[in-house]
């Protein structure tokens, strides 16, 4: 059994006991524990089930590389699936549940997959779920969906908050082991601005556990002093619980700080995502121990040798009473020695190397530990817990020589430098034969804009396997980084570290060497995704020779641990199967983040009320107070209508339309874009931008204009007012202000850079209110001020003055067909002016109207709306706007495009009005069936029986038009619509059939789009 030891546990605070629950069972641990160490201390070895076969799985590692111990953590708003127990710090009240099991962790029905494992080889899903086709929908997909996923999906909204932080440093150092600390000291002493981050909660990495001595004293002493020195440097910032997640172009790095994961009740953001610009990045990211591939290497109780040692030394946890160590290198002997020192039994050390180890091996033997050289584990006995190992010669095929009873197995297949962050932005790797690992190739680093290297690796991450090399190399890295960022390093020497000499390791990619299929199909490479040696071999056999293809075919390395343990072992098996060398096979691509980071940290502050900026007009508050039904228009919120108490939105819209037509309506039009264009070349510029002439507009006059893209398509419209000789004010649509301003600046800055024109977007400087209806003039005259009579201010004129004491710019323009004034006042007085209009207008029943009434009023007049009648494929000619296309001008944006054959095709769909024969409202976007064969496009053959229209060769109905705007007109008491119809204007009076989903088609007659006051008398009074 695994249990807590009375001694050891350098990271524990034994004075602070902590209660937590796992699968509902209350357990205790200490402050300083990880969830993993606390579970082990409570003899909870079984922590989960594997993804594919639901095999029982235990904790295998002690850090970020853990593939098995993933839990559902917390509850409700603090729930998180797939939390890694080895990197989750224990806190009082922590609740965790194991994942991927049903009905319980101990008794899992899905384990049947295990017995069917031989029928579920690599590529099983691809091969199986193809036939019969129908089975996919009804059998396979539901099954896979039920089985898929590890943790549960959260059901409550996240209760926490998150933030970003932008930081700029000379040197970012990732990893707080002795290498990172020394690099920080070297760079810090040189005067560089340094940020040192460590993903765990403690400094120093493995050195204290591995018995390293620095300057003749235990590593812990040196670490303490180093931290003190760094704390004292004003130019150095150090952070624990902060992981380097990704390295990107030009020294950009994402760093993930977990502020409150270990104290969820603190009033702190849970995570902070640092967005860092660094001059140089040092990756002192250490190394990860590799598992060994032997049959049953996934049985709970089999663990990495370094992890088992960590649990003893760091957390005072014994993983088992009787441990077998299996290794191909000297480092694992340290585990045997540590276990022995803790008073526990080491049954044997199984060393695959015929000649065994060096001084550490001698020490182990002197402690009385049995060492078996040239041997291997043939298989592990036990299912939910190791009960023993069967031993065989490494060189053989796996015939058992001896059975050694034990309840823990510590395995070590050598160490792989953590090269992820080096590789993210293009750093290359080289294969080190002696250590059988990939390490950074310093001659091919990630490079910046001038080809300069911007990442340096330090310590064991650079392949420095002995601590003396680690410190020397880290010191050099720190100094080099400081030098590259303009500081002068001190001519100090690196501290001297020492550790035991080691014999060379021997690459061992499977145990035993000649293992048959049966053993190979129980040798797990990827524990989380259940990929075995036999799967990779099968993939190679089936022709998946590229490592990237093998990865995807077998799912090797595709789990949440991204192959931290399985990568190299998988490559080696693949290389062997292909009869190739490992460096020739190469690695898969390392991509950020190093370990998963929370989606919420990426979103940062953007959630809830501040998910997105909402743009509010100065009159927005009145809408809030008057029950406005808001609709988004770009980032703006505009009132769709203002329903009164008990009134439906629809009724409100009709009331607003009628009040405006009959008496007086008020519209908040502040969102309309207002762009000032000024300069000696402004007229010429506007003549290019608009399809009609703007240069000949007289000061004091207004003109409606159209803007097209270079491709000829209508992009915006609005009224242009000429302010003075060289100044124009261009109104744009609500959604168009920023876009059109950018469009203007782009042409001015990239094409017509020598034209003397300045623009300024004054959209938000003014609140603009449309005063509309037969009583509009009376209201303004009542408020008093400037002359707004027909003679003084005619239709399509503007003037400046005062209305009711407000500074006002009054435009006599109409988007409703009524007598109408649009009045701009300074934004900060907008609300006061709006209130004054309502107060004075009460006698005419002044009625605020929203965007829907606005749309109906304009549609009744046949005015087009950008975004309704246009969709990026419509040209002004389609909309009968030929009158706005100047023939006097040589050019305007879109002119040449509009001469292309497709644009001049007489068969283009063109704007018409549509009147249903029964007065009903057409569905928006409905299509018209083509019933006129002579007008149908080529290829349209004939009417098919039971169809409403001509059909094409596939029997599909042909369309000849679509509805672009459709409303109930309270004014006319019937449905009105506009649409684009093939040869529309030539088909006046023809009745078309329109689609009506799940119902009979609707008949509508083609009419003029101007439904109301076709002579335009009302706006011109």
């Amino acid at each position: 059994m695994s249990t807590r030891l009375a001694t050891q546990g350098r990271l524990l605070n034994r004075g602070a006991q902590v209660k937590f629950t796992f699968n509902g069972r209350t357990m205790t641990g200490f402050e300083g524990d990880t969830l993993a160490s606390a579970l082990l201390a409570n003899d909870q070895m079984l922590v989960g089930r594997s993804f594919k076969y639901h095999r029982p799985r235990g904790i295998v590692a002690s850090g970020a590389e853990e593939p098995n111990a993933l839990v559902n953590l917390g509850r409700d708003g603090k729930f998180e699936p797939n939390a890694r127990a080895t990197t989750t710090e224990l806190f009082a009240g922590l609740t965790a549940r194991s994942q991927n099991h049903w009905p319980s962790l101990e008794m899992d029905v899905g384990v049947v997959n295990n017995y069917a494992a031989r029928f579920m080889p690599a590529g099983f899903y691809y091969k199986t779920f193809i036939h019969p086709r129908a089975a996919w929908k009804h059998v396979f997909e539901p099954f896979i969906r039920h089985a898929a996923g590890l943790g549960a999906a959260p059901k409550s909204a996240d209760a926490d908050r998150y933030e970003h932080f932008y930081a700029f440093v000379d040197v970012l150092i990732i990893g707080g082991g002795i290498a990172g600390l020394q690099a920080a000291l070297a760079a810090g002493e040189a005067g560089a601005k340094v940020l040192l981050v460590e993903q765990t909660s403690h400094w120093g990495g493995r050195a204290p556990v591995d018995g390293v001595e620095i300057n003749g004293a235990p590593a812990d002493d040196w670490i303490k002093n180093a931290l003190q020195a760094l704390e004292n440097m004003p130019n150095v910032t150090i952070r624990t619980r902060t992981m380097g997640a990704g390295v990107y172009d030009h020294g950009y790095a994402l760093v993930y700080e977990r502020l409150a994961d270990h104290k969820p009740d603190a009033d702190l953001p849970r995570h902070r995502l640092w967005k860092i610009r660094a001059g140089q990045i040092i990756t002192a990211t250490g190394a990860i121990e590799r598992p060994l591939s032997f049959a049953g290497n996934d049985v709970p109780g089999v663990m990495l040798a370094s992890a088992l040692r960590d649990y003893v030394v760091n957390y005072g946890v014994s993983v088992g009473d009787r441990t077998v160590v299996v290794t191909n290198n000297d480092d694992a002997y340290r585990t045997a020695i540590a276990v022995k020192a803790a008073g526990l039994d080491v049954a044997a050390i199984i060393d695959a190397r015929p000649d065994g180890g060096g001084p550490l091996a001698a020490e182990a033997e002197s402690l009385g530990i049995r060492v078996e050289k040239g041997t291997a584990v043939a298989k592990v006995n036990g299912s939910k817990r190791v009960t023993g190992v069967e031993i065989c010669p490494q060189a053989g095929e796996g015939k058992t020589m001896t059975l050694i009873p034990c309840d823990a197995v510590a395995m070590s297949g050598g160490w792989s430098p953590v090269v992820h962050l080096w590789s993210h932005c293009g750093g290359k790797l080289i294969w080190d034969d002696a250590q059988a690992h990939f390490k950074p190739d310093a001659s091919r680093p990630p490079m910046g804009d001038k080809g300069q290297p911007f990442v340096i690796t330090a310590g064991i991450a650079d392949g420095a396997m002995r601590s003396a090399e680690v410190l020397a190399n880290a010191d050099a890295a720190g100094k080099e980084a400081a030098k590259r960022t303009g500081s002068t390093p001190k001519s100090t020497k690196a501290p001297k570290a020492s550790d035991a000499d080691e014999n060379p390791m021997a690459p061992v990619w499977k145990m035993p060497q000649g293992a048959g299929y049966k053993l190979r199909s129980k040798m797990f490479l990827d524990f989380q995704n259940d990929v075995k040696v036999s799967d990779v071999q099968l993939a190679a056999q089936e022709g998946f020779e590229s490592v990237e293809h093998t990865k995807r075919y077998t799912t090797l390395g595709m789990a949440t641990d991204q192959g931290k343990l399985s990568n190299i072992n998988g490559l080696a098996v693949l290389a062997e199967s292909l009869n190739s060398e490992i460096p020739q096979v190469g690695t898969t691509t390392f991509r950020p983040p190093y370990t998963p980071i929370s989606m919420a940290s990426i979103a940062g502050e953007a959630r809830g009320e501040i998910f997105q900026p909402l743009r509010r007009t100065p009159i927005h508050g009145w809408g809030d107070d008057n029950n406005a039904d808001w609709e988004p228009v770009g980032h703006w919120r505009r009132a769709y209508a203002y329903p009164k108490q008990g009134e439906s939105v629809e009724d409100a819209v009709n009331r607003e339309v009628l009040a405006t037509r009959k008496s007086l309506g008020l519209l908040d039009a502040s969102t309309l874009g207002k762009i000032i264009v000024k300069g000696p070349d402004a007229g010429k510029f506007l003549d290019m931008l608009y399809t009609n002439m703007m240069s000949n507009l007289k000061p004091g006059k207004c003109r409606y204009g159209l803007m097209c893209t270079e491709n000829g398509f209508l992009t915006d419209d609005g009224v242009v007012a000429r302010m003075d000789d060289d100044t124009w004010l261009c109104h744009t649509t609500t959604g168009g202000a920023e876009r059109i301003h950018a469009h203007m600046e782009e042409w001015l800055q990239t094409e017509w850079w020598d034209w003397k024109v300045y623009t300024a977007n004054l959209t938000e400087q003014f609140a603009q209110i449309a005063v509309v209806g037969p009583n509009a003039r009376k209201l303004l005259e009542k408020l008093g001020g400037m002359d707004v009579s027909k003679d003084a201010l005619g239709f399509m004129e503007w003037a400046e003055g005062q209305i009711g004491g407000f500074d006002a710019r009054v435009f006599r323009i109409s988007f409703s067909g009524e007598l109408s004034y649009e009045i701009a006042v300074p934004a900060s007085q907008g609300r006061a002016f709006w209130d004054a209009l309502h107060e004075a207008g009460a006698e005419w029943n002044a009625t605020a109207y929203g965007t829907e009434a606005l749309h109906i009023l304009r549609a009744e007049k046949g005015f087009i709306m950008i975004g309704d009648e246009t969709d990026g494929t419509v040209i002004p000619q389609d909309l009968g706007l030929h009158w706005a296309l100047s023939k006097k001008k040589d050019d305007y944006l879109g002119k040449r495009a509009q001469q292309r054959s497709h644009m001049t095709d007489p068969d283009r769909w063109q704007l018409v009005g549509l009147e249903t024969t029964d007065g009903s409202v057409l569905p928006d976007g409905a299509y018209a069936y083509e019933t006129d064969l002579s007008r149908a496009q080529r290829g349209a053959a004939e009417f098919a029986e039971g169809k409403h229209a001509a059909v094409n060769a596939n029997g599909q109905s042909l369309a000849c038009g679509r509805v672009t705007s459709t409303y109930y007109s309270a004014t006319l008491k019937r449905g009105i619509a506009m649409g684009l119809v093939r040869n529309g204007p030539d088909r006046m009076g023809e009745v078309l059939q329109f689609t009506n989903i799940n119902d009979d088609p609707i008949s509508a007659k083609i009419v003029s789009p101007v439904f109301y006051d076709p002579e335009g008398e009302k706006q011109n009074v």
Partner: protein
Amino acid sequence: MSDMSVSALSNAQYDGSVQVADTGLRGMITLRGDLADKGLAKAVKAATGLGVPKQRQVLTKGSNGVAWMSPDELLIMVPYSAATQTAADLQLALSGQHALAANVSDARAVFRIAGAGCREVIAKLAPVDMASDKFAPGTIRRTRIAQIAAAFWMVDEETVELVCFRSVAQYAFDILVQAAKNGPVDFHLPKS
């Protein structure tokens, strides 16, 4: 009618270890023109008593200020009540040349972020190096805070002034307050 004028958030304020406050209306004029031109410099001097700032520089004197916005744009700051007149004066003074002066006072919201942590509050929202040796009083940056455009500068070591569009004033206030509430990062603060 400036007595009827209200700023976007009517002087809303948040008091924490870092304060965030809507400062109320400020006179602001966008001036576009040739910044190297002597006539322009003279007009700016007459309007504010200040010279033409260099790239990313803001000059202040009393309640007046001139900020560099782009190679051909300045932001002129005066008391709100003087903005209309100042804009007209500038327009008149520059009438002989190609220039644009537009009153934008009402298109803006102005916030003051005060307290020792003001640099960190900004650094949570804007991709700008807020280190004291990189961003000192007298420097202005046009950039973004979270999802909106903004410009800011330091009035003194513990005070930042920030300008954004009026329509997004509530959003700006809310994200600044959130950043302040989330507490210090201990990156730009001196080590204790």
